[in-house]
């Protein structure tokens, strides 16, 4: 998985000094320009894509190649010759071992509180209980971070991460429909958070009317987790109100799914996950599992996207790079101080300038 490339600095290793991007689009999945996944210094880039507008979209590339992937590899092999590339032994060991690094979540409690399963363990158990060979469609905010990390446990034929270039939400329904129509013999497993699930939930009616082989898993923590956890990280002490990012415990996705002709169940006990997944994923019609998970674990991917600061000259932008607060020329002409310092001074002296 691409996020493995973020790990070397955290285990005392140097990141790649050359990245060859072939047939892969950069964007949210690759950490954009943040440098978190694709280093933004000390690394050369070769990018190969059939679409010339993709080259250098996120980061400047040293060699941009408009080419079909096969044609590129064919020409490169011919040019490089046989057995010439020497790879640093330590790097080969580091790179091939990144995905096997132990995760801290293996040792945390599977159940955080009665009826609230840890999302890592809940999704891992659900994926492990599937028959191998599904098409896995990942949607949602924080649940997509957990799911992407755990995707190998599903032993999928294909993974479709419906993020797009900018981090879209809710379009997994369309991906699932497309996959189910294209490969009707394969089980399509679509993961949604309880936030993203609401975007196009009525497509479950489409699934049912067209007999699509789709099993939906709603990972439900009764909140927009990525947003609320971002708010917690930014304003925990300053403002505890979360009226928009808190979702309802009353929302019964399993009931709504039945209304759309799906087979459905609500699962809130860890020991019930395996049986429910095995039963629901083998149904001859579309099915849904409303998996209730704990709301408090914050996925490290969310924490990595929030950079809180008290600097009044910086605007904190969740999910993206912070930006400097603009200084308006009109103000500067009237007052020598930057606007934020000027306002601070106004507040301190309680002087009305306007």
């Amino acid at each position, binding site marked *: 998985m691409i996020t493995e490339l973020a790990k070397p600095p955290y285990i005392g290793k140097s990141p790649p*000094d050359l990245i060859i991007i072939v047939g892969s689009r950069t964007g949210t999945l690759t950490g954009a320009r943040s440098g978190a996944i694709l280093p933004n210094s000390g690394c050369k880039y070769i990018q190969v894509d059939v679409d010339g507008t993709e080259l250098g979209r996120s980061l400047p590339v040293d060699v941009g190649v408009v080419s*079909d992937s*096969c044609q590129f590899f064919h020409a490169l092999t011919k040019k490089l010759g*046989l057995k010439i590339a020497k790879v640093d032994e330590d790097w080969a060991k580091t790179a091939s071992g990144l995905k096997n690094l132990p995760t801290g979540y293996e040792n945390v409690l599977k159940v955080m509180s009665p009826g609230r399963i840890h999302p890592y363990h809940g999704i891992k158990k659900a994926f492990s209980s599937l028959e191998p060979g599904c098409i896995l469609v990942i949607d949602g905010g924080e649940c997509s971070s957990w799911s992407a990390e755990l995707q190998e446990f599903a032993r999928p034929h294909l993974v479709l991460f419906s993020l797009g270039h900018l981090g879209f939400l809710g379009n997994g329904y369309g991906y699932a429909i497309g996959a189910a129509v294209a490969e009707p013999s394969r089980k399509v497993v679509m993961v949604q958070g309880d936030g993203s699930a609401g975007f196009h939930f009525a497509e479950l009616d489409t699934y049912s009317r067209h007999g699509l082989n789709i099993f939906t898993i709603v990972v439900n923590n009764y909140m927009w987790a990525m947003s609320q956890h971002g708010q917690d990280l930014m304003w925990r002490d300053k403002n505890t109100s979360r009226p928009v990012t808190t979702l309802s415990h009353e929302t019964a996705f399993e009931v709504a799914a039945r209304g759309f002709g799906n087979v459905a169940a609500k699962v809130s006990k860890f020991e019930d996950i395996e049986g429910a997944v095995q039963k629901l994923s083998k149904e001859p019609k579309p099915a849904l599992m409303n998996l209730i998970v704990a709301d408090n674990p914050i996925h490290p991917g969310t924490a990595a996207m929030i950079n809180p600061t008290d600097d009044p000259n910086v605007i904190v932008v969740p999910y993206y790079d912070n930006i400097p607060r603009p200084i308006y020329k009109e103000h500067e002409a009237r007052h020598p101080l930057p606007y934020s310092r000027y306002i601070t001074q106004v507040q301190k002296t309680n002087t009305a300038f306007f």
Partner: protein
Amino acid sequence: MDLPIDIIFRPVETGRISWGSLGKSLPFRPGPHPEAIAQSSQLIRSSKRPALVTGSGGHSAEVLPHTIYTLRDTTEMLTHSIARMLKL
């Protein structure tokens, strides 16, 4: 976009549809510029810690063998792990 209703409901005159090259063989795909390959080769030779990132355009059933054979044929050290991937 607005389409006149008489256009929308007019019967299709199949003889007047331009099908372009549909029905013909697919076009040849674009290949890399020779200089791009020369520069790529130079960067690969001088790198110590290279990484290959592929997405849906690079790991399809059609492309994956090219990816793997490129690595296998040009790299000594990864031969073992690639052989395992290929189940050789």
